[in-house]
């Protein structure tokens, strides 16, 4: 066998090594795996829906588990998800912070209050994302999306679509410490 004919195989082997290294280094990007999973949640601070003079943010929530759930009254899938969130709230294992995403609905704030009054409120707190900046920082593609954040502020899991009771059990509850409970109401800062 002439060594000349082994050259292509050698080049290919080198390429495979590069690709293999690449794949292990690649951040888990994409729709299903947010690049943020495993990293600190980008700092956020948003006005509280019921009292916009006060805000709630990632700093105040340090030390606690929480679920950050993006939704909007314009979002059909969020209505779908709502029942599952109400059931999850009844479990009282972790606090759910709702982020009402205004996008281009001018009456979103009042619509949101009406929605919660009519359909029930699964959230410990609801904040409003008016300019969508936080949504961009968090890489939200479409509501609903939810993040599970641990006491160190690290995103442990991201659900890129609606939460169902199965998803809640499999992906959220399984990641919480056993016997976790919702802490007493988090006060908003002024």
């Amino acid at each position: 066998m002439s060594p000349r004919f082994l050259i292509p195989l050698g080049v290919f082997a080198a390429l495979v090594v590069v690709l293999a290294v690449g794949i292990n280094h690649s951040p888990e990007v994409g729709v299903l795996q947010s690049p943020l999973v495993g990293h600190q949640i980008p700092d956020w601070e948003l006005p509280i829906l019921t009292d916009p003079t006060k805000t709630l943010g990632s700093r105040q929530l340090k030390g606690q588990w929480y679920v950050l759930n993006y939704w909007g009254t314009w979002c059909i899938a969020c209505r779908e998800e709502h029942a599952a969130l109400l059931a999850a709230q009844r479990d009282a294992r972790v606090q759910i912070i709702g982020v009402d995403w205004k996008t281009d609905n001018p009456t979103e704030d009042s619509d949101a209050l009406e929605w919660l009054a009519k359909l029930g409120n699964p959230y410990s707190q609801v904040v409003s994302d008016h300019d969508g900046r936080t949504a961009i920082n968090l890489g939200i593609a479409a509501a609903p999306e939810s993040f599970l954040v641990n006491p160190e502020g690290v995103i442990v899991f991201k659900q890129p679509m609606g939460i169902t009771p199965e998803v809640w059990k499999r992906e959220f509850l399984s990641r919480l410490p056993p016997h976790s409970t919702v802490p007493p109401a988090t006060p908003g800062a002024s």
Partner: protein
Amino acid sequence: MLPELGHFALILALLLAGLQAFFGIVGPAVGRDRWTAAATSAVAGQFVMIATAVGILVYAFVTYDFSVLYVAENSNSALPLMYRIAALWGAHEGSLLLWIFLLAVWTLAVAIASRNLPERFAARVLGVLGVLSFGFILFTLATSDPFRRLIPAAADGHDLNPLLQDPGLAIHPPVLYTGYVGLAVAFSFACAAMLEGRMDPDWARWTRPWTTAAWAFLTCGITLGSWWSYYTLGWGGYWAWDPVENASFMPWLVATALIHSLAVTEKRGLFKSWTLLLAIVAFSLSLMGTFLVRSGVLVSVHSFAADPSRGRFILVFLGLVIGGALTLYAWRAPLLKSNAGFDLLSRESFLLFNNILLVIAAATVLGGTLAPLIADTFGQPTLSVGPPYFRPTFLLAVIPLLLLLSIGIHASWKRGRLEAAARPLLVTLGIAVALGAATVFGFYGGRHALAIVGIGIGSWIILSSLLDPVDRLRRHLSLSRAVLGMTLAHIGMGVAVIALTGVESYTSERDIALSAGASAEVGGYDFKLLGTQPVEGPNYSAIRATVVVSRDGRPITTLFPESRTFWVQQQTRKVAGIYNRHGTDLFVALGDDLGAGSWSLRAQIRPMITLLWLGPLFMALGGALALSDRRYRLARAEARAGVKTPLGAAH
């Protein structure tokens, strides 16, 4: 129930692909004729199973079956029917199914057309195709099942990615994939020859039409993708050297080299092992494209939902298939000796240069695409490689290639006598340079003297390609379709070169802010914004601007660029307003609302852009013409009549 049947059909297809691979490869090896014959039956069965699976998934999309996860993620009740069908390949799982389906279609075509090939050789080809199909179906079932259920079903779907909701993109992936997958046929022919350990003298003639067909589809697919990005991504770019674009371009470059080296192998029995290697490499690059797009190793606008576990699977598969083929090559290629010689200025020489330059071009693209990864491997910081690298390095290989093209087509086989062609070549070169100079100085103004080179080279290719056919016509000699096809493809290349030069040198572009009633001048045209109004689509709301374009006070056209916001994903997509005037595009895209009735707009004047789409179209048509040549049909008729050319290529 139906989706489960689809899943089941895929499992059956996997088993049949396994049988096809086993019987096709082992049958001829152990000399069992009944096993050999069984490979063909497996092909038909596999095709039926895969077509069933595809049909069931399409049905789920058409009937809004949101209990299927893939449908729920990529469709919506407001999505128009055409896009519900196109949503089949809108994301990873379904596009993989499309890949498998197209492979089954190609395999079926090979099985039907190769009834006249030597039985064992044909079985080996089908066996190798079976291995590929097995790997991809296993990949789908193991990591990317499109039939996974979502229980309880979603009330409505998450919608198709808005970028894909466009006619251009709806047809671009199937055409491109047909090209990608078609290269698997050339690959399988190469592997079958190596498994036999000898290359039939007719091997190149059998392989050529398949390769040309795959190449023509690849040409169309790349062009459609480029056209789509031109009018929908909003910035009017048609090529960005994006990793995924490169992933389709590299197989094209190598397939182009393969077409040319196959010509030498067919006519002169030379370059045998080189042709085999190119056939392996062309398909390997198309597999690698699949890997790059789906593994998340390189991030790009085209990336699918990335998942390293999928990447690992593809990498292992890649290693087995390509590594296996290259090992076979290292073992068997030395047996193929060509002992004919040729002169320096013979056609063989020119085609050798063609091959070397095309492979260098592909290597520079590969290097640039993988540079970030290679840097990462050696612990270097993130490296980004863009057009400033690709353009000059690529041109370095391509300019000599294009110059040699005009001469090479007039060189004769074996003997290096160019004297007869020297005079007409010099005359056409003179005309081409004059044309280039006239275009640059007379028509567009002398801003870009270098454009003479591009337009000159392009014109020379066209003129010198026409020399021979025109001469034959004048002498009332017949022209084979193969020669006509080659001529048309070369003219297409010349047209594309001229178009690229024109577009790159003479595009005028401005980002302007206009309030209603105001106008701005771009490249000699006046763009006047009349106003904006909201419009509603089936599943989106849009802002539509009305822009009147005029020249010297005379209105030419009214354009309606839109910015569409899709309801479900709340994602915005631009649809540019384009008017074509004598091959020049007047282009306007709507940007952001700047407040107070003022909007940002991007206006472009792109001369010769029509030629940029026509050039590749000519190339693909040339390919289609060439593969309809009589001698391929003759080959079949001969084989049917039992006339076999003497064997003995192996020494």
